[in-house]
């Protein structure tokens, strides 16, 4: 399990707590893309905003979806929250993002080393892979592990004025998500488009 990896000295934090800390910092209608499962459940539980997008499938696509939003709206800050298992499905997207280098994109990897929602099985990378090192090697040079909650908040703030995309790795515990997203994809998408200023409600 990743939490036993001796190479790491980062604090084990909590997904809901970190997500709440992020949301509390958002004052400019920033977009937040929540990856499949617990990642978007905790985003939902942290307080629904029209600028939140919740994935109900398509595991691994939180960063690509966020990249699309970031390209479409270069003046808006876009955050993406993704689990370690999800990111392992789409490691190639890190290189794509590094190549396009949108400066308005901040990615957060919630790493507990397990597929919590399916029964806490360890991911194939849990014992050996360092996702932040993979991100750096993919060309995302502004990538780092958050040492603790204060460091996470500092890295989030730093990313808001960064000259390129930022990736923040956080080690988290094995707790499930706090809430459950309402599984209504059309309403989620429509509300998000209202939140992005693309559409007016009917």
């Amino acid at each position, binding site marked *: 399990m990743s939490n036993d990896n001796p190479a790491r000295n980062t604090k084990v934090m909590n997904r809901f707590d970190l997500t709440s800390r992020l949301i509390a910092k958002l004052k400019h209608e920033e977009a937040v893309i929540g990856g499949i499962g617990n990642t978007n459940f905790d985003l939902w539980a942290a307080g629904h905003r029209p600028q939140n997008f919740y994935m109900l499938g*398509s*595991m691994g696509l939180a960063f690509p*979806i966020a990249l*699309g*939003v*970031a390209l479409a709206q270069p003046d808006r800050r876009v955050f993406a929250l993704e689990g370690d298992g999800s990111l392992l499905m789409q490691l190639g997207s890190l290189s794509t993002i590094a190549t396009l280098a949108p400066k308005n994109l901040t990615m957060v990897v919630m790493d507990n080393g397990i597929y919590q929602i399916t029964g806490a099985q360890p991911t194939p990378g849990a014992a050996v892979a360092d996702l932040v090192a993979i991100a750096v090697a993919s060309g995302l040079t502004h990538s780092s592990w958050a040492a603790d909650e204060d460091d996470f908040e500092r890295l989030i703030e730093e990313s808001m004025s960064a000259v390129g995309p930022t990736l923040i790795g956080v080690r988290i515990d094995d707790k499930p998500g706090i809430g459950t997203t309402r599984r209504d994809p059309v309403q989620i998408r429509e509300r998000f*488009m209202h939140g992005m*200023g693309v559409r007016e409600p009917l």
Partner: protein
Amino acid sequence: MAVAEEKTSPQTAEKSWHGIVLQTLKRNDIRLVPYVPDRVLTPLIKNLHADPYFTTFATAREEEAVGIVSGAWMGGMRSAVLMQTSGFATLANVLASLAIPYQIPLIMFVSERGTLGEFNYGQSLVCRTMRPVLDSLAMEHHTATRLDEFEFIVDRSIKQALTTQAPVALILSPLLTGGKVFDK
């Protein structure tokens, strides 16, 4: 160089299948075109890169491209994805869990391999999965075989995808593009 030739003779390019795609994308304000490349798509990809109107780039996987254009659509930017038949075969999950249920007007151009002179058995097998997948999801799809119908099919399909908020697959037959033939 092929690109330079096409740039100096825009009329010829416009009457080719790839010229029609490029011009029809432009007319419909589609600026973002991620792709996983295919030999047949090469002239289209080259001309998209050469035209500053477009933001076009390679992705590592086709579903990554679908994620990107879904986000772009929700952010107010129109897009289309280019791929090959075998790439389409990797998309069933993202079509069923993102594009269709979230009502994303995903516009896909699929260069058809696996038929009309295919030399790789795996390509011909994977090609046979494409239309059953599209039909099982009740997705709009057209196979373009003739240049004289092509602009109509592309333009109307783009407009229908956007207005009905539903994905569409435009399959580019070797009858239209010439396809890829055994050369080595």
